[in-house]
Structures are given as C-alpha cells and as structure tokens.
C-alpha cells in the first residue's frame, strides 16, 4: 500500500482541476472498490480527490422532458429507494438492491458503480500475470479456474466479467452517462460506456482522462408494468452474479410491443442483443419465444471449461426471467428465481 495525499473538491469544476493537476490521482466517492484495490496494492494513486461534496451531483430529479437524472454522487441505496425510481424504474431499483450488501449500497455512489473493476481472481492476485493489470503479461484465467468468467465478447487477452448489477438495468433502460472534463461536457449512450476487452483489457470504459461522471439520465420509458431482475449466484445474497438478467416488456395483451433484455455476469460489459429484442417484437410473450430469443442472445457464446455451465444457465435464466417479468409482483428479495 502506498501513501497518498488527500484533497476535497468543492464542485465539479474544482474536481476536474484537481485531478488534472495531480498526476496519477484518482477520484474517491464511496471508496468501496477503490480503497479495497489500494489495500491489495493493485492501485497506487498519488492522491485521492474526494468528490463526496459535489452537491450539484447529489440529487435525483425529474427533468422537463420527463427523463430522470440520477446524480453521480447520489448513493446506490438512496437511488434504489427513491420514490421516483421505485415508481417509474422499478427494474433499476431491484437490480441495485440485488448488488453487494446494505452497508456497501449505503456507501457506493452511482458514478462509482459504473467504474467498479472486475472481481476476476487473477486480476486480484498480484503474484500472477494479468493483461488487465499488466498489459501483455498474459491471462491465466483462460486455462485456469474460470467459473465466474465470461462466455460472450471475450478476447485472447481477457475473459473477465464486469460485476455490476445496477449497470445491467441501466443498459436495459438505455440510460445515458453525462460526463465533464477538461474539454467540456459530453453524453455517452450506455451501450458505448463500457467496452469489450479486445487487445486492451486494461481499459474498462470510454471515460476520458481527467473526466468525471456527473449524472446518469434515464429515458422517459421505465417499463414499470412488466419487468424483472433475476440474479443467480453461489449463495443467496451478497455474492456476485454467475448470470443475471434484466428483462423489460411493453405488452399489448400478451403481445410484446417492445422488449429489452440485458445480461450480467457473462461479459466484460452489460450484454444486449438488439437482434433478439427485435425478434420478440409483435410476438406472444411465451416461454418458447423467450427460448428462441435466448438462442439469439447466446449465439457465439463460448465456455472456457469451468464456466461452460453458464451457457445453459443463461438460456434458462432468460426464459425464467421473461416469465417473471409478466408477473413482477412475484419477485423475491435478493432477485431470486420466482414462479
């Protein structure tokens, strides 16, 4: 563990100045991932810029066009239990509450949730090679114990998964990430925020150097009638997903007008298939159709030995969660499977 200096930012502009004037510094909000990585000697910030006091990024507000803005500094728990989110975006609420523990959700910020790093065992073990930690050093996960690893969008260099639950719902809802930096403000569609590993697995996302996430916007449509988040894991609570699914439908009777399906625990980013969602449009909401959509989503899926089971598990999870989304009231605490 290295020593570091500590500075508190008063506002977003000040935060950007501080990060750009302190080489190798990092922002800290909840600290739930960063402090842990620092304790494991996996990250070595020269300074921490505390962004917990950026009041302009702390709120959850409805915008003029009925979109909803989640402040990046708002806490995961405050977001999940916010009346607007529980009412209009219950899929997001359920996904957040399926992640981590109550203590961590009280600490973790919305912006930080997007920036958390993989929990690949090899990434966390500084004694072994890892292309994400040290580009070019190798990936022992491919031939190693890879039960928790990716089946979609993998590369020769990396098979790590992105561990967030919240982001799986944000992907399904087509959220937009608003960022500020030395070159001004920009907005990044959620689909483009996280990236596949390719030959640069050390880069998790498209946030630029010196940029800060200020907020996340949710489109007006929240799919509050038919939605479900299902999370399958090795213990009932406080574990990362082996496979998770966020499903949302607009229905006319039993006919699907629009469908959103995003998978977690299977890739380096939240995984969506526009083709599968288009396939479901104007079809009956039945297990058979969900199975056909699942085959489209999982086309090209590839296991690495210990995680081969994930392909079948993901298919079953997509079908089950499709049925659960027809009856959202059946959802159980912890996003367990329900009827």
């Amino acid at each position, binding site marked *: 563990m290295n020593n*570091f200096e500590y500075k508190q930012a008063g506002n977003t502009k000040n935060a950007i100045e501080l990060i750009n004037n302190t080489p190798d510094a990092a922002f*800290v909000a909840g600290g739930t991932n960063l402090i842990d990585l620092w304790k494991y000697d996996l990250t070595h910030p020269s300074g921490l810029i505390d962004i917990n006091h950026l009041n302009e990024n702390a709120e959850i507000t409805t915008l003029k066009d009925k979109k909803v803005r989640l402040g990046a500094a708002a806490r995961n*728990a405050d977001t999940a239990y916010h009346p607007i989110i529980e009412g209009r975006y219950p899929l997001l609420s359920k996904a957040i509450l399926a992640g981590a*523990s109550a*203590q961590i959700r009280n600490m973790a910020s919305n912006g930080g949730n997007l920036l958390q790093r993989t929990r690949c065992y090899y990434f966390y073990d500084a004694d072994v090679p890892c292309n994400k930690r040290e580009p070019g050093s190798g990936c022992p996960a491919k031939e190693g114990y890879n039960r928790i690893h990716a089946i979609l969008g993998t590369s020769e260099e990396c098979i790590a998964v992105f561990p967030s639950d919240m982001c799986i719902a944000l992907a399904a809802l087509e959220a937009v990430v608003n960022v500020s930096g030395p070159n001004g403000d920009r907005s990044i569609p959620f689909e483009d925020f996280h990236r596949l590993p390719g030959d640069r697995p050390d880069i998790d996302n498209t946030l630029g150097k010196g940029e800060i996430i200020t907020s996340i916007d949710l489109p007006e449509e929240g799919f509050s009638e038919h939605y479900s988040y299902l999370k399958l894991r090795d213990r009932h*609570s406080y574990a990362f997903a082996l496979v998770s699914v966020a499903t949302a439908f607009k229905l006319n009777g039993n006919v699907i007008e629009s469908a959103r399906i995003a998978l977690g625990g299977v890739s380096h980013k939240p995984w969506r298939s526009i083709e599968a969602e288009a396939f479901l449009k104007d079809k009956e909401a039945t297990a058979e159709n969900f199975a056909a959509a699942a085959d489209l989503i999982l086309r090209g899926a590839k296991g690495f030995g210990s995680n081969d089971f994930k392909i079948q598990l993901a298919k079953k999870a997509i079908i089950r969660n499709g049925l659960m989304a027809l009856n959202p009231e059946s959802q159980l605490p912890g996003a367990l499977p329900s009827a």
Partner: protein
Amino acid sequence: MTKTTLNVNQQRYELNLLPWVSLLDALREHLKLTGTKKGCDHGQCGACTVICDGKRILSCLTLAVMKNDSEITTIEGIAGGDELHPIQQAFIDHDAFQCGYCTPGQICSAVGMLQEGHAHTREEVQELMSGNLCRCGANVGIIDAIMEVKDGGTHE
C-alpha cells in the same frame, strides 16, 4: 496530517490523521474504541459496521478524513447508559452469538437497518442483514432477535 473532527457516540474528537487511516483504525487505534472489530478489512464480513449520519457503513473501506464532522455511532454508543438497547437484549435472549466477534457489527447493522426502515418481512431482514457474516452459524438466532424487536417483542 489532516485535521479531522469525528463526533462519535455524541462526543466530539479533534484528530490529526494521515489521509490513509481508515475510519476503523481511527476508532480502534486513535480513540481506543475497540468494540468495532476488524474482520477481513476488505468489506466482505461486516464486522466493522458502524452507523454514520444515520446509515450503516463499513468503517474498514472508509477513510476517516472523508468523515470529517460526521455523526458516528459505534457499538459502545448503542446502549442507553446501563440500559441495553432492545436489540442487545434480544441477542442475549435468542442466543444470537457464540464467539461474539461479529456481534458488534451485527448489532450496529441491525439497529441501522431498523432505522433505515426498508425491512418488512423475515426474508427482507435476512436479505438486508446479508452483509454481516457469522462463522459460528448463529444466523437463525440473529434473525429471530431482530424480528422480535421489529415486531415489538411478539416474535417466537
């Protein structure tokens, strides 16, 4: 060194801290409040749970300097003088511990959870207490104790 004011169990402490001192170490090593336990020190076990500004948090993953001016309640501040908090009494009544190492975190977490007000059913209590591990396996007693207090002492 960073000047940091911590209000712990309604007492004000002025400290000069290095920025990398965790809230857990500040409580234990600087304030000698050793009731809060260091279990994993990585946010996986919940033994270090304290209540900060009304919300339960993990003191091991929190830098003390980030909590300047915050109101913190540790296990030492849960009882009202010599009178046990109902959760503490219920833990005794329900055999909710064996070795006791996770107990301060369990009790702070339970008190925080009841304050937060999102647990309604037994299943929700189990889910919202999942950040506190008990390796002795006293979980059934722990949940029984919390349910009794939550339901006003009527739970068997």
